[in-house]
């Protein structure tokens, strides 16, 4: 007898998981996002034990667990590394292609943070170059209140 499994049509279900999430930024995250939203300022936190200034801010030092203190950071800094993105993804891609992701160490911080880069010329990006934040006009309390970073333009 022929095995019924041979030649069985295979059904595929197009489904999804769509659970709505509301992630708490916490007191530390809230203060950071408020500064971005209300004052267009970056804040980091410094571990009094290790002396490291973390950005994004940490309530406690990831290394030693000590409670950190607030530090103001510049809105410009150094591009540590980057990648120019050439592929579009319908749900994810945040800016027109090509844009870049970069790890940016702001002046005053010891760690880099991840953000977007735009307004750069083809081949312009280099590790070690200076970049500056471009803030959104409408800000809502998220890291996207910074639209992106761009190569630092000398004051006109």
């Amino acid at each position, binding site marked *: 007898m022929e095995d019924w499994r041979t030649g069985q049509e295979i059904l595929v279900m197009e489904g999804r998981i769509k659970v709505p999430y509301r992630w708490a930024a916490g007191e530390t995250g809230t203060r950071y996002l408020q500064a971005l939203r209300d004052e267009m300022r970056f804040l980091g936190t410094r571990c009094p034990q290790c002396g490291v200034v973390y950005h994004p801010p940490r309530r406690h030092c990831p290394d030693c667990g000590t409670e950190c203190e607030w530090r103001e950071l510049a809105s410009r800094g150094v591009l540590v590394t*980057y*990648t120019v993105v050439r*592929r579009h*993804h319908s749900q*994810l891609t945040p800016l027109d292609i090509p844009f870049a992701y*970069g790890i940016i160490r702001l002046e005053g911080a010891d760690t880099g*943070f991840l953000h977007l880069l735009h307004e750069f010329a083809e081949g312009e990006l280099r590790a070690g170059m200076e970049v500056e934040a471009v803030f959104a006009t409408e800000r809502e309390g998220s890291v*996207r209140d910074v639209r992106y970073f761009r190569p630092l333009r000398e004051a006109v």
Partner: protein
Amino acid sequence: MEPVAVVGVGMTRMERERRPDGYADLVYEAVCLALADAGMTIDQVDNVVTISNDFFDGRTISSMAVQDACGSYDKNISTVEGDGAFGAFYGLMRILSGSFGTTLVCAHHKGSESDMSLITNAMFDPVYERSLGIEAVTSAALQARAYMDRYGVSEEDCALVSVKNRANALRNPLAQLPLELTVEEVMSSPYLAEPLKVLDCCPVSDGAAALVLASAERARKAAGKPVWVRGVAHCCDAYHLGDRDLSDVRALQRAAAKAYSMAGIDDPAREIDVVELYDAFSYMELMWLEGLGFCGRGEAGRLTAGGATSLEGNTPVNASGGCLAGNPVLVAGLNRIIECALQVRGEAGEHQVEGVRTAVAQGINGPCGQSHCVWVLGGER
């Protein structure tokens, strides 16, 4: 460490889409292969560790789907959510505890059923990073750039890894992406995120794997030649990408140092005969080789170009074709261990390396190789 051996292994073929089979079907196939290899029945399995990920499976408690298929009925069982190398480590510890003589470890993955970019975007922090759209490929590209900039590694150096591993895969009947490639072809494939091009990246895969671990006493009763676990360790680096020097491999170095010290290995390049590592992207093979101590930092490109890591070289790396030839995520680390076991047994078929006595397998968790697990396997206890 008390002696524990890999006594049975089973891998399904890696395929782009294994439509007729669900997770349970894949796991059943791999488990049956591993039991047959060990010459054991399910009754001789004392406990089970499954490996799966709720995000990839689109299913909370993803292990639930495979409860029938993994043969765990009325046995102790647990589930590690992470790469197979970590899951197997838990299986090993359960034997070392003295509570069990054998552990069956199995992993499954069906990349064909989900959107890899969305799944890996979810490993980034929802407050600070996720809304930027970063995911596995774009984050890896940041690391590739950092590594290449720091050590002067070229895109061609990386492309050569792709060429080598896809060529190795021509000898592996289970590989998904055996290809005869040239460096030029890799170089001219389109960029996804610079410097990563399509041919630098692993494919999306479906697959499953299983292995049976046994204490020395129980290993004697198994059919095949036991392959002994001589050392194993893992270590996790910082989470936020900007907290790390992405070109650095300190977590891998620490894991490797511990595993080597357990195994009594002083000079990996001389003492280890074959390496299976997590090359989801071509540059990773170079970085991880350096982290595993096979050469100095920044030297793996030259090592590769000189042929040392080819099938005929001193230390063949990813003789199976590695993740570049098929990457069922989570299963990948188990496949690395299994390939090492087969190499030590001299049963790796067409991609067998001559005279393998000691082998190293590696698996990773998290973005940009944040967490590494290193296994040293050998023919002698």
